């Protein structure tokens, strides 16, 4: 064996690490893998680490989740509680609730792990939301990353449902109310609603099955799919190589940053520990989902302030804001008051999921993009994104309308009306304002490039005029500020071709031309300075 090693001196015995690597290479081909990957480059930017926050909180959730399964009993058998929490002594509750109490009070460290699990879930979803917005506003979803955008979107949606099935497991009064809501919403589904409800709950609500069923969905089905998607997501990030912001030396054909070994390994590996440590400390100081004060679930009991975890708050807002429409026809009931919000929930998320495909259709751009946009340089996209987030946030307010009402001394009815109107008006205002701001910033960039940076030095000219000295920008800044792409709006072209034959223009082409104009028309982007403009100004005002 030693004769085949590539060491220069065959008599020298290779170090142990190398021998292990040789062994592995003979079976896995690790040297060829490492050749291209060990020094793989990752650009440094804080916003590129949002995805890592998600990845690590996901790993933390899996680790702590496995621990929790060792003590949790996913059973709805009724038991009388005799554990250490006094205010529930002798109460009837499901085994699921009782075992969660035991994890919290009788297993040392159980409460900490429960809280790490739940806080990590909150952070995971919040992290995914912000990560998604980072990708959206910088245009990182463009070719070749549309599929990875979809993977990420699916992870967000699956994360929502994994979270929901998870916090329903303790069978406490708050989550039980949420499950009851889910059952009511399922009943509202036309035609099949009652059947799905009976099948899901094994009969009438609440039955004795849903905790066990949610359990297998929560710990096996959904996380299994998510794990697969996470792996796929990472493989694609690896394969596409990370995007980067424009800057000196950074082109669409390269990636500039630090190598995987050693810097990125230390930073990314270290960041895992930072995230885990931080969440552990949060779990040590802040209580989350204290089920012992919520009490066991009873379908005839409820508490005010009945909200889902934040990531379902937007759906909750839709439900709360919806007027109570119900249509009774031919012996059937169409429960629009519940069904419309359910449909809207899907549509609203679907719009953002499909956005990359809509934008690439409008631009007609089939090229690869590895340089990120600054949000201001894509005003229509940025405005659309802000409008979407505005609607989302207004619905979050709607989901907590009772808490908003009590804490700001408002009427709950007024808050609901604000949400009803705001859902439609808010995004329009946000769109217009954002676009104006983006165009203003583009104009400022243009001025900076052409006239230089305001130096703050005021000079008096011989004839008495005061001027502010503008310093010309460095070559790096000039390049960075002009590096973005600008599209021309698509045109339908003349209605009659060169031979005088009338051209057929169909509706989609017209729509596309309109949209394209909305994106790249004269009023919708500020033309970036050209070399000619720059030269003319710099030569004319050379004395500055």
């Amino acid at each position, binding site marked *: 064996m030693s004769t085949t090693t590539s060491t220069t001196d065959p008599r020298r015995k290779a170090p142990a690490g190398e021998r292990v690597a040789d062994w592995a290479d003979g079976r896995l081909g690790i040297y060829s893998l490492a050749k291209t990957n060990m020094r793989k480059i990752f650009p440094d930017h804080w916003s590129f*680490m949002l995805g890592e926050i998600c990845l690590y909180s996901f790993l933390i959730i899996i680790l702590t989740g496995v621990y929790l399964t060792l003590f949790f009993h996913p059973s709805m058998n009724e038991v009388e509680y005799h554990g250490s929490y006094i205010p529930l002594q002798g109460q009837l509750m499901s085994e699921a609730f009782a075992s969660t109490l035991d994890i919290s009070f009788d297993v040392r460290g159980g409460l900490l792990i429960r809280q790490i699990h739940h*806080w990590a879930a909150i952070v995971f979803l919040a*992290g995914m939301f912000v990560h998604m917005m980072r990708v959206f506003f910088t245009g990182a979803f463009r070719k070749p990353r549309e599929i990875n955008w979809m993977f990420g979107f699916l992870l967000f949606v699956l994360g929502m449902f994994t979270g929901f099935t998870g916090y329903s497991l303790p069978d406490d009064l708050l989550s039980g109310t949420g499950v009851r809501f889910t059952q009511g919403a399922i009943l509202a589904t036309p035609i099949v609603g009652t059947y799905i409800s009976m099948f899901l709950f094994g009969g009438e609500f609440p039955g004795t099955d849903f905790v066990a069923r949610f359990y297998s969905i929560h710990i096996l089905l959904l996380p299994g799919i998510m794990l697969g998607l996470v792996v796929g997501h990472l493989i694609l990030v690896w394969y596409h190589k990370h995007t980067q912001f424009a800057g000196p030396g950074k082109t669409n054909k390269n990636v500039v940053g630090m190598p995987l070994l050693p810097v990125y390994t230390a930073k990314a590996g270290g960041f895992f520990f930072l995230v885990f440590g931080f969440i552990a400390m*949060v779990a040590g100081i802040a209580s989350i989902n204290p089920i012992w004060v919520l009490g066991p679930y009873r379908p005839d009991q409820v508490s005010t302030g009945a909200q889902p975890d934040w990531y379902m708050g937007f759906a909750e807002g839709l439900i709360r804001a919806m007027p109570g429409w119900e249509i009774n026809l031919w012996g059937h009931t169409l429960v629009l008051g519940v069904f419309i919000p359910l449909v809207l929930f899907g549509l609203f998320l679907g719009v953002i999921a499909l956005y990359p495909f809509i934008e690439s259709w409008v631009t007609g751009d089939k090229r690869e993009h590895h340089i990120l946009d600054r949000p201001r340089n894509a005003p229509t996209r940025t405005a659309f994104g802000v409008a979407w987030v505005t609607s989302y946030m207004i619905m979050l307010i709607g989901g907590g309308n009772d808490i908003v009402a009590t804490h700001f001394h408002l009427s709950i009815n007024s808050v609901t009306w604000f949400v009803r109107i705001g859902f439609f008006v808010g995004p329009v205002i946000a769109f217009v304002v954002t676009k104006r701001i983006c165009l203003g910033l583009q104009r400022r960039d243009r001025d900076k490039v052409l006239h230089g940076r305001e130096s703050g030095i005021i000079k008096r000219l011989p004839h008495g005029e005061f001027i502010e000295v503008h310093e010309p920008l460095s070559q790096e800044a000039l390049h960075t500020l002009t590096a973005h792409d600008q599209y021309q709006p698509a045109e339908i072209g003349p209605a009659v071709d060169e031979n005088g034959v009338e051209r057929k223009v169909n509706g989609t082409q017209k729509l596309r031309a309109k949209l394209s104009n909305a994106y790249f028309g004269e009023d919708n982007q500020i033309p970036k300075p050209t070399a000619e403009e720059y030269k003319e100004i710099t030569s004319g005002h050379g004395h500055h």
Partner: protein
Amino acid sequence: MKKLSARRRHPLAAVVVLLLALAATGGLYTAFAPADKAQADTSAQSLAIDEGKKLYAVGCASCHGTGGEGTTDGPSLVGVGAAAVDFQVGTGRMPAQQPGAQIPAKKVIYSQAEIDQLAAFVAALGAGPSVPTEEQYSPEGADIAEGGELFRTNCAQCHNFTGKGGALTNGKYAPTLEDVDPKHIYEAMQTGPQNMPSFPDTTLTEKNKQDIIAYLDVVNSDDSASPGGLELGGLGPVSEGLFGWIFGLGGLIAVAVWVAARTAKAKKS
């Protein structure tokens, strides 16, 4: 209660008159449903009733009518009983300052002795629940777990799991039960102040009420334990979500900024 006794000898008449002049400018919406307790309180000393009548004429009559018969600004007090007076005046809700969706609790301006006299006068107008004795509302020896279940059946829907309060329609709200005197909790259940329904002894026994008070004493007092750490207002997922976003994700992003930031260079050229 300490505050009350500290103010016992304050010459407050002028303040009372001033407040009432303000209060009378608006309508008062507080109404009391006749409570059930058919326990006549005619044996109260006539002296207290007389004193109470004087206080009533100054502080209450403008809204509730000179004989407690009620006006458009305030409901009839006939039959509301001493417990209602002790609750309303003892928590500072009465006399009301201004009309609104709901009359809030505020600083108490009568001494306990004056409240007792007012209560005696109103009790004399018609039979109603009397002020509970300490034996009735003391949480000593009550069943905490049973109280918790009763609380979740009867109270949590408005006052939240641990009595942090919640919203009602059109700007009304169920107030927080933090730091509320057990006597006042008992009286509120018995008399149903403002929009709160009453829970008379016939449907929620004295023992039931004691259990509820005992439960609140454990989960909603200054030294109630919150084993998991910061209680975050005890409001559930809304405050948890805010905390998770601001401190959880916010803190992690701050860490990320440090990880990704460039290390200081030796010299700025």
